[in-house]
């Protein structure tokens, strides 16, 4: 490339490494990452301590909802599944899989498995549709 005087021009430099070593370069990046880690480590530590904090809090100011949880619970009557339900499940599975299948057993979810907020789970699942990548 030549300029008006026919002198060869040097192409504009695309990469400039100098800014990396200035205040707003690598030092800022390291500092920023440290702040992010520090904040989230502190959040992590706090979450770790949270059950203890709750225990202390409960000692002085019991949680009414927890009290109702610890109150004597009515006797649980074993649930007997009506016959129609496995039939409906089997029909739904047959429709979805379209291959021979056999439902071996069904079970109720444990309390631990139900620990997730149902509302939160519903929203996460409903917010976007699942699209398998190999769909046709």
């Amino acid at each position, binding site marked *: 490339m030549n300029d008006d005087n026919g002198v060869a021009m040097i192409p504009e430099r695309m*990469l400039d490494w100098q800014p990396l070593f200035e205040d707003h370069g690598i030092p800022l990046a390291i500092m920023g990452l440290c702040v992010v880690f520090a904040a989230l480590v502190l959040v*992590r530590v706090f979450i770790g301590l949270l059950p203890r904090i709750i225990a202390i809090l409960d000692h002085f100011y019991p949680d009414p909802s927890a009290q109702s949880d610890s109150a004597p619970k009515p006797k649980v009557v074993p649930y007997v599944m009506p016959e129609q339900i496995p039939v409906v499940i089997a029909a739904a599975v047959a429709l979805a899989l379209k291959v021979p299948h056999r439902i071996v057993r069904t079970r109720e979810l444990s309390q631990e498995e139900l620990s997730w907020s149902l509302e939160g789970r519903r929203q*996460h699942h409903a917010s976007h549709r699942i*699209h398998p990548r190999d769909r046709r």
Partner: protein
Amino acid sequence: MNPLENLVLKASELYQTTAFAELQIGNVVMILIGITFIYLAIAKHYEPLLLVPIGFGVIVGNIPAVSGMALGVYDDGSVLRFLYFGVEKGIYPPLIFLGIGAMTDFSTMLSNPRLVLLGAAAQIGVFLTFLGALVLQFTPQEAGAIGIIGGADGPTAIFLSARLAPKLLGAIAIAAYSYMALVPVIQPPIMKLLTTREERLIRMKPPRHVSRRERIIFPIAAFLICTLLAPGALVLIGMLFFGNLLKECTVAERLANTARTAMIDIVTILLGFCVGCSTSAQHFLTKQSISIFVLGAVSFAIATAGGVLFAKVMNLFTAEKINPLVGAAGVSAVPDSARVVHMIGLKEDPHNHLIMHAMAPNVAGVLGSAIAAGVLWSQLAK
């Protein structure tokens, strides 16, 4: 002047009052891009809630204005200019964060706190891209705004670029939302490349029950921790945790419900449409935009890799193993990246449901990217 000449003159004058007179090839290209966004949203279901408003906004923003008429987002006094005010001044992103907070269930994070660190690790993409943008001769302010694309958080990217690099706002917003929409395409190859089959099969223990008290205390305490360390994140994190408190306290259900439904929908429409409108070819089709898109892709890939690799490093020091796929959810594309983790996990083991485990780093990633934005803003604001 004979009647024919008069007719031609009138036709010419009429032509000058149409948008065709000012239409350039760049506008046509952008209109095609807008149509492509709408196609991807409708046919491929890539982030339809965002890509439909943005895509249509791109079309609207590339209809050339007739001289003397204030129509576009850059024309003083136009209606679009008033709507764009919310983008330009960073009003919409915090409102979106309020809605996100009212939707977010932090129980996942509270039940397995070590996964929080994965949300921090993914922010390495932000800062490495920041350095990359500096090398490419962007100013530090522009580099900061570009780097935050790696956070995969559209509102945060808009919020920061409106403050640090308003001229690049359109390109950064489009890049951020494009990569958020392409999470199911970009992340899986990186996740598979960096993990072995054995690692992808790791099962994590079910989460513990989180009490209501914990869920109420957490947003207040976490807000204090985050904003005392990074005050620049005050607006975004404040609104996020305020929305979450509305949800968890259960006594303000009406407010929480409005925040997570009608309000966030309205703001999403306005934000997406206005961002699309800001991408007129004259402002958008530049070499800088191409660089921003390349850097954004790099940033996103590094962020994903950072989360996955950090999970593998954590596995070296802990007895209870983490499925490293979960690390990819450290980018804050909620809930898409968590869903991608879930899908990849299911492909390896149809009974290994990772979605709830992945939500922990996912929401931590939202915090991480907002804190990163706060740090960059506080350090780079002139």
